[in-house]
């Protein structure tokens, strides 16, 4: 019996999400009275692996990349499924991000293990194994029963608090090996921006909508995000108009995010937009229309024109910082 948590790395490093996953796995293993094991694939050094120990993991299986040249979901899913079988996993935990979303369903099929994606809390019950998950794009939550003996959960980012619980983990290092590794995909080109806070990782997000009136009005919004160490985002009409890049679009068909603080500036709050941001811990709305639906979702608000309120807000933050 064990709980296995797959901890993805980004150029050999972990991030807050990795520690959230480990915290969750350790807690769940405690509930199930079993041990939690972290599984890492790729080039990660011992020092980085040891950081997982801060959150209570006692054992780490590290598979060095070996013949795998890049992330291929078919190959990685086999490695994860093999490890889960070998370690007799009751529960396998992954992130509900791009990698997790492409791996978990494959592992589910390989192990014939029930999968619940996007869970945001510990199971509601263990017998039967029930979890709560977001459905209808945030308009409801479903209690889902996982009916198999091995279960897979993908955890929503920023939904589970870090739990420090120092341990000195044992690291078992080996080289990933697969019989006939799949070779269906080949990387041609990678374009990466570095140094920018990722929208999905950001704890504070400052987002603008059509109420910003023109793309020329974005400077104070960007400044506010920078001052707060956050990321910028936008509503769908703004990205459709090309005022901001598509990667910034948050909402049902764009990115679904759950920061600690979300500023909706000049965003009316259509259902489709709320679907992407409703898991934010706090929503601040700034809108000139006092009846805009965004104020029903927000905890704090200012009724006013974004072009006037925003510069004043920037000044207020500067003052707070000084």
């Amino acid at each position, binding site marked *: 019996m064990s709980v296995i948590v797959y901890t993805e790395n980004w150029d050999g490093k972990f991030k807050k999400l990795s520690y959230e996953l480990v915290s969750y796995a350790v807690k769940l293993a405690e509930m199930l009275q079993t041990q939690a094991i972290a599984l890492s694939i790729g080039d990660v050094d011992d020092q980085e692996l040891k950081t997982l120990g801060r959150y209570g993991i006692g054992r780490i299986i590290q598979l060095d990349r070996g013949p795998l040249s890049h992330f291929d*979901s*078919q190959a990685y899913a086999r490695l994860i499924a093999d490890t889960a079988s070998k370690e007799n996993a009751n529960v396998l935990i992954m992130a509900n991000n791009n990698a997790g*979303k*492409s*791996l*978990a*369903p*494959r592992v*589910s*099929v390989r192990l*014939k*293990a*029930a*999968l619940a994606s*996007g869970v945001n809390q510990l199971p509601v019950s263990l017998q039967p194994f*029930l979890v709560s998950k977001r*459905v*209808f*794009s945030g*308009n*409801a*939550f*479903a209690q889902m029963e996982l*009916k198999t003996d091995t279960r897979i959960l993908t955890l929503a980012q920023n939904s589970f608090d870090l739990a420090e619980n120092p341990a000195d983990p044992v690291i078992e290092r080996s080289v990933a090996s697969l019989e006939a590794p799949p070779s*269906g*995909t*080949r*990387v*041609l*080109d990678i*374009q990466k921006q570095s140094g920018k806070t*990722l929208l*999905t990782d950001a*704890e504070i997000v400052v987002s603008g909508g059509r109420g910003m009136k023109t793309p020329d009005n974005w400077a104070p919004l960007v400044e506010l995000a920078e001052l*707060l160490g956050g990321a910028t985002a936008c509503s769908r009409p703004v990205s459709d108009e090309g005022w901001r890049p*598509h*990667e910034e*679009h948050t909402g049902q068909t*764009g990115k679904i995010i759950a920061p*600690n*603080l979300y500023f909706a500036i000049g965003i009316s709050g259509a*259902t*489709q937009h709320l*679907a992407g941001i*409703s898991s934010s811990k*706090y929503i*601040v709305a700034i809108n000139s229309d006092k009846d805009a639906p965004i*104020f*029903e979702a*927000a*905890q*704090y*608000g*200012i*009724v*006013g024109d974004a072009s006037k*309120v925003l510069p*004043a807000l920037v000044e207020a*933050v500067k003052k*707070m910082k000084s």
Partner: protein
Amino acid sequence: MRILVCISHVPDTTTKVKFAENNTRLDQTGIQWVINPWDELSLTRALELKDDAGNGVESVSVAHVGPVSAEPTIRKALAIGADAAFRVDAEPRDAYQVAAQLKKIFETAAFDIILCGIESSDYNGSNVGSMLAEMLDLPSVSAISGLRIENGAIIVTREIDGGKEQLSVEVPFVGIVQKGIAKEPRIASMRGIMQARTKPIQLIEPAPAEPLTAISTFDPPKPRAACKFADPENPAQLIEWLQNEAKVL
């Protein structure tokens, strides 16, 4: 090159969802059903690829797993421009069952490119595409925002954390599609709607597959506290609340 687009039908995103039978089932009264937004974009991109004869796309088909009540959605896909449709006559209860049925379609008629939306806007699982790929033992690429054919080779763009990656993929493969693959969903023309009436929908008997999960109840999200308003002339008040009350700054 033959393309299959898997389509799911979902309540229109503006629908107020309600539940029946002690919150154990979706209340279907008054629901306007639409093609799942990402599936609609996948279909649009498939048709764009077919429009350019140089790409050598012979046909674009759509697949749906569901009861006869979904036929208007399938006809809509045919009206937009799909050549043919497959429907597995089943009422699947989870993603695993859907994928098992789609597998049967692939075994009935071979395809080179299978496209699935990244998630359906009802159960938000993001599971079917990758499950299908694993069942068929095919390569897949997730979160693709670009798909093109270059001298017979398939090139996809996928979003990775902080950037984009271009890959070449061997066919057959499963592409799991997100926003950006096509600009605007294609809309059915009058002529398309007329033609759709005579296009074939092939009915397929369901494959035996048990669901691995079951939804027991639905709950509405917890209500949020009422909004607290700061004076527009004094935004410093808002910052003070965020700092000392919410403690998020």
